[in-house]
């Protein structure tokens, strides 16, 4: 890199660093392909930052003296400038997890060498997500770009739009500073571009700036600066055109698009072509325009000079256009080869923003490919592609753990989890600053993330390939049908497969409701939404009414396929839900009432469940009962579980009340308890699904140290207004996080590696205190790996967050149980009553107690549901009396008596409503061996 001031002394470089830099330069010089060259320069950039540029410049000068002509290092220097510039402007160069922090360090090093680069460093820091330790407000303020002197740095980071515009500006200022010593015209053009990009301009102001820029452009020497001016100006014209179009000003939109086109004229680069295509497709009023736009996108996709990100964006846009043009073959051709790229971005995304964006893109591409294949009548491939987008990250994590270094993966995940909780652990070794100067400055979290990621690079991606249609239908029973649901933006596809279907489904039905409409009904609608009714703890009658509406809609969707299955003499149906369908209890649909219904989260899970070895009922069980002390029927439930298991020779250990701590639970599991029955409170957290939890008793030793954190009554200044949201660390104790929740305020203490005590305050009074056994804790635990059956008899223990993007990735307690290695989990989709839950479990375990051989848990649970649903009042009275007789706790007995006393006031079939009988379901293998049967 050329420095702006000849007086400046280049940074001192040790011999070792110089030698390593030369080795990198040699690698770049020997690169056989442009991809190899890019990879070599990218590696060098994230390792040395601008110092590698100086090394190349030095090598170029040395070689130049010998050859007197342009030499390979001159070319490499220019190439590196562009790579480095694009990196500093936000583009990812490598899959490294610490790349963002390396970029920060590189920018700060550049600014330290020459203050003219300070604005760039400010932009790079602003790229960090809110809350990142290096997003230092004071530092950013000190690095404020001179051109932004009129902008006030927002203190809360809530209004960052002008800043972010600059931060996203690729190569704009970088071109001016990095490409060499700019003369006055370069500087002037860069400043104009800066204004165009960062200030809100109307059409006439923008035109004024563009006119000034066009004059300056004539004398500007550097291509990057001129290009940046053109692209930024065109982008602003396009934005104004879209806005005009939105307001119905068609003439204005046309005029602005023509200005945009003028700015891009003669620019035969992919960025310009993509933007022209975008404008053409956005304002297309006929198929011909759309076809031309699709052609432009195609040119970018196939361009050898287009950056990866640009090609991926162009491919999605082309597919969208081709879909409207009904050109499904091309839609397939453009997306299929790029699918692994979208998938990798999703699997390796590091934070919520990245995950959301990558998930959105990957999910969209998967759906588009599925749709194209369906329209091309390539069902087998459609099914396979569709499955590829389901639970990818979960399957990826599970496969990593199943590998020979699985223990290390869990260890690394635990380290990362602990660090994020504020625990100081031994950080990964710091790289040698002479070999990896930027790496030696990254923070602990980034280093841990990168250490975590490096474990994954060796993982063969083909292991994640979903099963083929042949494999799927090959493991089905002869009398079984599988229903695949695909909700998309225009309709919902229901495909019914029978055993032996290898090319296409036996029956296909198309429902009118779109994915948005399902989302509205199930999750996001303002009123009558299924999940909303659960969130707001409405009465069971209200919830049942909402559930009935959901069931009616789902029944309408499934009905045609169900009828066909009946005609085919099918008795068993497995549903593979899609996105929000995971929260629908399909076993409660009237049209499926004659079938044994089960669900599987993915086809891969379905095939695995049918092919993996069936676990045995273990000899030891752990029964966790009523850790919070308020579920009065829990003792009866625990008693009925123990009695039933005893019939099979299973010895049960009970952890009850305050004795049911996480430590005690894990100890029991470690000691060999391989059946876990949990009877207590549960919570599904949709905002932070990894915090979904089962509630255990708080550890007395932790409480004795932290009692002051959880007073019985909160002081008056903590009454639930916005100021109550807080987070602070108490030395030696852990992090306290306080936030408002529906109905009050939750205060949590994160202690130790995985402990979380949660207190809920309503009207300033503490009404709940528990240790949270969270999905995050469960997913990094090893103690559950041998558990054959976990029964989570708690509220909404199987209700998981699906996410807002297009991706199908349930996250919550069930996913954590699966990841931790639990073979079978029985969980609930919604809150269950204390007594009703105990009674249901009484029926379930009574049935289990009668079983021998290979037990089909789906079938068993289905029988219990039917029995519960059709149970008469008299039978219920008998059942509740039997349950009561088993309880030794007088309070449990009296509570059951209360329930029994109320039964005569209930309908003839007290549990006939779906809300009463359909909450429980099985996830996992679905089988258990009891007795001496062979698998």
């Amino acid at each position: 890199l050329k420095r702006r001031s000849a007086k400046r002394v280049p940074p001192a470089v040790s011999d070792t660093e110089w030698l390593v830099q030369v080795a990198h330069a040699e690698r770049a010089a020997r690169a056989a392909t442009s991809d190899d060259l890019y990879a070599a320069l990218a590696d060098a950039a994230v390792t040395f930052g601008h110092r590698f540029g100086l090394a190349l410049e030095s090598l170029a000068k040395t070689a130049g003296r010998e050859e007197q002509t342009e030499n390979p290092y001159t070319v490499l220097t220019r190439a590196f400038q562009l790579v480095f510039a694009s990196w500093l402007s936000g583009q990812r160069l490598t899959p490294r997890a610490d790349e963002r922090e390396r970029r920060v360090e590189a920018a700060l090093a550049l600014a330290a060498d020459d203050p003219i680069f300070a604005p760039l460093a400010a932009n790079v820091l602003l790229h960090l997500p809110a809350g990142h330790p290096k997003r230092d407000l004071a530092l950013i303020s000190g690095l404020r770009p001179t051109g932004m002197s009129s902008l006030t740095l927002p203190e809360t980071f809530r209004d960052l739009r002008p800043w972010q515009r600059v931060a996203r500006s690729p190569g704009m200022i970088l071109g001016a500073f990095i490409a060499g010593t700019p003369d006055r015209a370069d500087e002037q053009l860069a400043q104009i571009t800066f204004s165009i990009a960062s200030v809100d301009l109307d059409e006439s102001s923008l035109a004024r700036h563009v006119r000034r820029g066009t004059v300056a452009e004539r004398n500007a020497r550097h291509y990057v600066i001129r290009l940046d001016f053109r692209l930024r100006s065109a982008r602003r014209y396009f934005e104004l055109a879209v806005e005009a179009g939105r307001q119905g000003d068609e003439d204005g939109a046309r005029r602005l698009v023509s200005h945009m086109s003028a700015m891009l004229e003669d620019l035969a680069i992919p960025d310009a072509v993509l933007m022209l295509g975008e404008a053409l497709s956005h304002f297309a009023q006929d198929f011909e325009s759309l076809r031309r736009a699709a052609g432009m996108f195609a040119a970018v996709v196939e361009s050898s000079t287009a950056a990866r990100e640009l090609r991926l964006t162009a491919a999605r846009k082309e597919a969208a256009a081709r879909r409207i043009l009904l050109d499904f073959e091309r839609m397939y051709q453009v997306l299929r080869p790029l699918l692994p790229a979208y998938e990798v971005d999703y699997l390796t995304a590091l934070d919520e923003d990245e995950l959301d964006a990558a998930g959105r893109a990957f999910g969209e591409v998967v759906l588009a490919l599925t749709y194209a294949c369906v329209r091309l009548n390539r069902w087998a491939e459609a099914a396979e592609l569709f499955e590829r987008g389901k639970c990818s990250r979960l399957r990826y994590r599970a496969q990593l753990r199943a590998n020979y270094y699985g223990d290390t993966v869990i260890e690394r995940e635990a380290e990362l989890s602990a660090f994020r909780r504020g625990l100081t652990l031994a950080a990964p070794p710091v790289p040698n600053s002479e070999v990896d100067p930027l790496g030696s400055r990254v923070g602990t979290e980034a280093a841990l993330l990168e250490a975590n990621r490096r474990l994954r690079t060796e993982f063969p991606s083909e292991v994640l390939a979903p099963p083929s249609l042949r494999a799927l239908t090959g493991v089905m029973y002869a009398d079984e049908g599988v229903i695949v649901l695909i909700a998309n933006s225009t309709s919902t596809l229901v495909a019914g497969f029978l055993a032996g279907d290898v090319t296409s489904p036996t029956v296909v039905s198309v429902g009118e409701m779109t994915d948005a409409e399902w989302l509205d009904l199930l999750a996001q609608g303002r009123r009558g939404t299924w999940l909303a009714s659960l969130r707001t703890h409405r009465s069971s009658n209200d919830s049942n009414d909402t559930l009935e509406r959901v069931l009616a809609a789902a029944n309408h969707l499934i009905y045609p396929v169900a009828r066909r299955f009946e005609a085919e003499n099918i008795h068993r149906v497995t549903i593979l839900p899609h996105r929000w369908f995971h929260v629908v209890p399909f076993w409660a649909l009237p049209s499926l009432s004659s079938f044994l219904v089960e669900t599987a989260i993915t086809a891969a899970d379905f095939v695995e469940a049918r092919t993996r070895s069936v676990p045995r009922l273990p000899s030891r069980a752990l029964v966790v009962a009523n850790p919070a002390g308020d579920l009065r029927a829990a003792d009866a439930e625990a008693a009925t579980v123990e009695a039933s298991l005893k019939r099979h020779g299973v010895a049960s250990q009970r952890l009850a009340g305050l004795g049911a701590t996480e430590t005690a639970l894990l100890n029991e599991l470690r000691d060999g308890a391989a059946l876990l029955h949990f009877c207590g409170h549960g919570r599904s957290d949709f905002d932070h699904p990894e915090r979904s939890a089962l509630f255990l008793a708080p550890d007395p030793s932790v409480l004795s140290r932290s009692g002051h954190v959880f007073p019985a009554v909160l002081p008056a200044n903590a009454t639930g207004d916005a100021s109550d949201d807080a987070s602070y660390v108490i030395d030696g104790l852990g992090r306290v996080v306080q936030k408002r929740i529906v109905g009050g305020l939750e205060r949590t203490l994160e202690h130790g590696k995985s402990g979380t005590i949660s207190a809920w305050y309503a009207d300033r009074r503490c009404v709940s205190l528990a240790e949270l056994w969270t999905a995050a804790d469960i997913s990094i635990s090893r103690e559950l790996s041998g558990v054959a059956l976990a029964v989570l008899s708690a509220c909404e223990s199987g209700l998981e967050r699906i996410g807002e993007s297009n991706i199908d990735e349930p996250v919550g307690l069930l996913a954590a149980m699966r990841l931790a290695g639990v073979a079978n989990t029985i969980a609930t989709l919604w809150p269950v009553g204390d007594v009703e839950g105990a009674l249901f479990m009484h029926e379930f375990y009574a049935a289990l107690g009668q079983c021998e051989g290979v037990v089909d848990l789906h079938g068993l649970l289905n029988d219990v549901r039917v029995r519960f649903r059709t149970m008469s009042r008299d039978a219920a009275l008998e059942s509740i009396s039997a349950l009561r007789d088993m309880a030794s706790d007088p309070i449990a007995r009296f509570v059951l008596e209360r329930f029994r006393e109320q039964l005569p006031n209930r309908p003839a079939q007290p549990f006939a409503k779906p809300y009463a009988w359909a909450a429980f379901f099985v996830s996992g293998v679905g089988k258990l061996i009891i007795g001496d049967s062979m698998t």
Partner: protein
Amino acid sequence: MNDQPWITERLAQAPPLGAPAPGTVILNDSKGEILDEGAATDLFAAYFGSDDTQMAVRVVASGDTLGYLSRTQALDLIELSSRGLGESIAQFLPGMSTYAPISLRCPIGGCPANPIVAATFDVMYPPRCPEHPSQPLEFVRS
């Protein structure tokens, strides 16, 4: 302002006719104050749940008999909850005593106050038998 304990209006002056002799529930907490409904309900549940034949219980507070609570009225106090967060009325909470029901008895043979259920017992200041006011009650180990 009503100074009557919350339970007073539910109590009868005498046990139901023909019912077995009722035992006793002492309704005071460790500070001598009347228990709230949640904690008291557990005492009644413990009392009635341990003996299906009992139809009533004598309710005593600060040594005074407040009245008699029938089994039916005690059943009405029970609220059936779900297993969701916030459904509870008597979780184990910090800074608050956990009033697990305990059994006491009057050592005088044939005392009609027995069996006795209370929420708290201080061996230095044991409560007195409602039938024999000079007689301290004894703790019954289960």
